[in-house]
């Protein structure tokens, strides 16, 4: 008895875990494609971004077009939980705050199509980026945000700088948007009667492991005695990339002065993986690259330079100047770039930074101190050179109002460092999409020319011209000589195409960079956790190597790799693209905040960036049909009905057993039986399910039906007497479809006596067979009908197998095998190994079928890849085969008519 129960449960669990769950899940949920989450980031004192609950947030979809819709969902909506889908015009900080504060709202889906003519601004960034770092960091605490904020305040301001307790997703996928809108109108309208219907709902999963702040999550990640170690968060980090025009010497040399030319390498956005950063990063980055390339070419023959120029690209600048603060930290420690001949802060004679450059015919420079002689001389030359191209260089220097740029990290240490920041803005950003997903080609008005001539008034020619002017000025500063060669605008165009449009581009191939696939093939300038390499940084490193690499002739690739330079810090790199060996002084340094290096550093101190990114396990958005609460009331009544149904079957069955002994014929019994149940509803047709989300594949159905007929013919010729108890079964099935577990009691009832095959009552088989017939009839109700019986079948099989008499095993098995093969008749290919089959069930019952390469059982393994339908059909057929087998077995042993008195007694016990 207990054994039987155990088997039933085991069989049941085995079947659920290995076969059905996935399919049911696929049937129930539609995964929304191309959705991008907002994730959780933390710093030393707070957390920012979004998170869902552990199992995802569920809510009925509500489309919000205007404030009326918003008020309705906030105040008068009938359901307990909603997920709001809205467009950018409703995505204001104020509205989000309202949604966030409401217990009823479980998530937000921002749906904005790619057409963006009506989007005039969107920057979820703080009004004063990096408000508490750089010059504002302790101990200086200089206020750089006043009198005017840098990033203009809009209704979107600071969305990135808030901890939302609900998940926020973004999609610009037309298909997804249409899907959501269609289902909303189909299921959730009209709003007044929402309680009475099943509603279309979303489940948003973006559970973030970290909480509170970086200090907490790092402490938790490092807890040694935790039995189940979890990484709660990871520090943001990547590489800074730097390249001196003249390689650093290995041997000690007289102290040299450096002009540092810097730009940033990263950007960010509210949504993970969608940070195009065209204006905030790409234009300045490309200007720096082309300047470096021209200056390198100019100075290749220079014997004696007054000064060296060091190009640096700082990473992680969006998060409290990670890269630049690290370089400053390393310089102070005497470890930049190497421990021998390090460059100190005082070795920097001039700091030039490029930030947010755009095609404005003018460049505005910022400096903290009023220009000294060095800066004035440089500006004079630059002005002269830029004017040749019609670019005006003008100043905007105000004492405290200094823009949020990497140079602040240096100024925080040496306030009187000579430095110029070249930008496109005066006292406020002109970038209306700063740190947002719309900071793209449209924002900088860039169109790829693909090799054709570059128009004069274009971003390409501006970048080419300004970098030419800059390179000339730098060259003059280095050598006191004039230069005349210029930057090729076509090269600039190729670079911009890479850095603004797509990373799978011609320039990337030319510099030998093999692009790894990204989910959306979109550019992402977000620095990310230090575990993951940023593609932009890798591409830029390749670009530097190729633009600033000296071609050295070597015999082979291996020789190139093993080259060593004893006098200078260089390394050699073999370029597959050009087939050359390039010697370059380009290198990288860690862009990881010193906060994570210094032992026992208090992350809340605010001296260094303390940003971390939360870990997560699963991020997705799924859509499904949620039953209404009133509907549940109806459902609740069903079990009662089912109970009584099982009771009736049981009673009728027992009655028939008694009455048969008393000499009553089946016809008589059936008549009475039908009278007794005359009022009960019969299920003539298969139930039509209005909420059916998916049709069965027709092909599979036909196949199944053919097979079924074959089995039935065989079966019916062998068992002439079919009981009519089945319509009870049939009625009951309609209820059963709602919950497959309810099928268990029936089987349990039938086999609770733990009988062996010999005394297995034929009528019980008949009953099962009828159940089978009915299921077959209802097959097209794919989802509900098939799944339950699929499971039941498994445990039926299991049960019958274990009770087969041992001495007959081998014979029976071979018969069984023949039978299976004859029934299947080449239905299903894909024979599998028995071993994997066994593993699938993880149960020794299956062992009884040794050497059976039954084709339809093989199908079990393909369950995962095939539609639920086919598989379930096969399950049913298999079951029928088993019944058939049992029938044969019983006939061979004398058949049902020859049951011994003891066996009968056992049956009727």
């Amino acid at each position, binding site marked *: 008895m207990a054994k039987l129960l155990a088997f039933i449960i085991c069989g049941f669990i085995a079947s659920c875990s290995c076969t059905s769950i996935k399919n049911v899940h696929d049937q129930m949920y539609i995964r929304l494609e191309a959705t991008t989450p907002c994730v959780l980031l933390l710093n030393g004192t707070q957390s920012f971004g979004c*998170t869902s*609950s*552990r199992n995802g947030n569920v809510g009925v979809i509500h489309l919000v077009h205007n404030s009326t819709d918003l008020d309705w969902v906030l105040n008068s909506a009938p359901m307990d939980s909603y997920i709001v889908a809205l467009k950018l015009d409703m995505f204001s900080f104020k509205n989000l705050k309202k949604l966030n504060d409401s217990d009823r709202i479980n998530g937000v889906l921002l749906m904005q199509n790619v057409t963006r003519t009506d989007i005039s601004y969107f920057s979820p960034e703080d009004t004063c980026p990096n408000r508490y770092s750089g010059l504002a960091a302790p101990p200086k605490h200089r206020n750089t945000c006043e009198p005017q904020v840098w990033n203009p305040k809009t209704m979107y301001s600071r969305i990135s700088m808030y901890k939302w307790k609900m998940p926020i997703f973004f999609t610009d996928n037309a298909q997804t948007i249409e899907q959501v809108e269609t289902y909303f109108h189909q299921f959730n309208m009209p709003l007044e009667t929402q309680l009475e219907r099943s509603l279309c709902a979303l489940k948003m999963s973006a*559970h*973030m*492991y*970290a*909480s*509170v702040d970086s200090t*907490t999550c790092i*402490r*938790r990640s490092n*807890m040694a005695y*935790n*039995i*189940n170690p*979890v990484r*709660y968060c990871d520090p943001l980090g990547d590489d800074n990339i730097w390249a001196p025009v003249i390689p650093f010497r290995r041997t000690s040399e007289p102290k040299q002065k450096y002009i540092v030319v810097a730009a940033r390498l990263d950007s960010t956005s509210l949504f993970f993986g969608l940070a195009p950063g065209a204006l905030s990063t790409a234009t300045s980055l490309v200007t720096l690259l082309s300047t470096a390339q021209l200056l390198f070419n100019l100075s290749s023959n220079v014997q004696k330079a007054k000064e060296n120029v060091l190009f640096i690209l700082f990473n992680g600048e969006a998060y409290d100047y990670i890269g630049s603060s690290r370089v400053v930290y390393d310089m102070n420690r005497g470890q930049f770039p190497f421990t021998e001949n390090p460059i100190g802060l005082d070795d920097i004679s001039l700091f030039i930074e490029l930030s947010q450059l755009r095609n404005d015919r003018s460049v505005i420079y910022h400096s903290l101190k009023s220009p000294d002689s060095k800066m004035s001389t440089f500006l004079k030359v630059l002005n002269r050179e830029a004017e040749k191209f019609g670019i005006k260089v003008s100043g905007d220097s105000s004492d405290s109002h200094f823009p949020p740029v990497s140079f602040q990290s240096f100024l925080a240490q040496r306030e009187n460092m000579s430095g110029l920041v070249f930008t496109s803005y005066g006292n406020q950003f002109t970038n209306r999409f700063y740190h947002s997903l719309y900071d793209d080609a449209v924002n900088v008005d860039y169109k790829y020319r693909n090799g054709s001539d570059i128009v004069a008034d274009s971003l390409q020619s501006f970048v080419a011209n300004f970098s030419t002017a800059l390179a000339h000025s730098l060259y003059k500063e280095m050598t006191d000589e004039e230069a005349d060669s210029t930057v090729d605008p076509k090269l600039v165009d190729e670079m911009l195409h890479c850095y603004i449009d797509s990373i799978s581009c011609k320039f990337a191939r030319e510099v030998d960079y093999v692009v790894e696939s990204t989910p959306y093939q979109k550019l992402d300038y977000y620095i990310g956790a230090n575990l993951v390499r940023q593609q932009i940084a890798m591409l830029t490193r390749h670009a530097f190597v190729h633009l600033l690499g000296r071609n050295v002739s070597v015999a082979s690739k291996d020789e190139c790799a093993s080259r060593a330079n004893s006098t200078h810090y260089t390394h050699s790199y073999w370029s597959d693209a050009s087939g050359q060996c390039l010697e370059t002084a380009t290198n990288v340094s860690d862009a990881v905040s010193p906060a994570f290096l210094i032992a026992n550093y208090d992350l809340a101190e605010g001296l260094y960036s303390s940003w971390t990114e939360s870990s997560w396990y699963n991020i997705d958005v799924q859509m499904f049909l949620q039953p209404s609460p009133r509907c549940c009331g109806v459902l609740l009544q069903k079990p009662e009905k089912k109970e009584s149904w099982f009771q009736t079957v049981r009673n009728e069955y027992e009655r028939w057993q008694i009455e048969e002994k008393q000499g009553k014929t089946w016809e008589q019994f059936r008549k009475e039986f039908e009278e007794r149940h005359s009022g009960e509803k019969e299920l003539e047709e298969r139930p039509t399910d209005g909420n059916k989300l998916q049709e069965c594949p027709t092909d599979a159905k036909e196949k199944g039906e053919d097979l079924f007929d074959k089995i039935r013919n065989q079966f019916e010729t062998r068992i002439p007497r079919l009981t009519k108890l089945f319509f009870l079964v049939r009625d009951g099935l309609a209820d059963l479809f709602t919950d497959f577990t309810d099928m268990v009691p029936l089987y349990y009832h039938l086999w609770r006596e733990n009988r062996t095959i010999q005394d297995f009552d034929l009528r019980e088989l008949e009953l099962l067979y009828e159940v089978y017939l009915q299921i077959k009839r209802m097959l097209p109700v794919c989802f509900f009908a098939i799944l339950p019986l699929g499971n039941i079948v498994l445990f039926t099989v299991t049960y019958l197998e274990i009770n087969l008499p041992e001495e007959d095993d081998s014979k029976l098995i071979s018969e069984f095998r023949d039978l299976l093969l004859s029934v299947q008749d080449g239905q299903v290919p894909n024979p599998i190994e028995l071993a994997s089959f066994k593993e699938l069930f993880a149960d020794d019952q299956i062992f009884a079928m040794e050497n059976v390469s039954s084709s339809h059982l093989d199908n079990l393994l393909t369950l995962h890849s095939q539609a639920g339908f086919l598989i379930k059909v096969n399950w049913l057929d298999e079951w029928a085969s088993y019944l058939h087998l049992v029938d044969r077995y019983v006939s061979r042993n004398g058949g049902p008519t020859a049951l011994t008195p003891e066996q009968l007694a056992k049956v009727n016990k």
Partner: protein
Amino acid sequence: MDKSRLSNAEKLKVCQLYYKLGFLALPAIWAVNYFWFYEEACIHPEFDEQKEIRRLRRRSGIGAAIWLIVIIMWVIIFQTSRIKWGAFGDDISFIIPTGS
């Protein structure tokens, strides 16, 4: 153990044993004592050891109740202030739930 087969003296012994075991910070044993000897203490006709059983049962009950109150209070305090306690809260947690 089938209690009905024990003599009254043996019942008292069991009751005493459970009472003493409860002092090893095992309130559940006190709770068992309290409920298990309900019949002996409150329903059965009077017998010699009943008075003592009643006394021990009452004390066990009170002990178990105090334990229960203390545990409930601790759970409430712990759950509501774990995050506020910071490092200490993490240190005394066996499993730290993600996201909170």
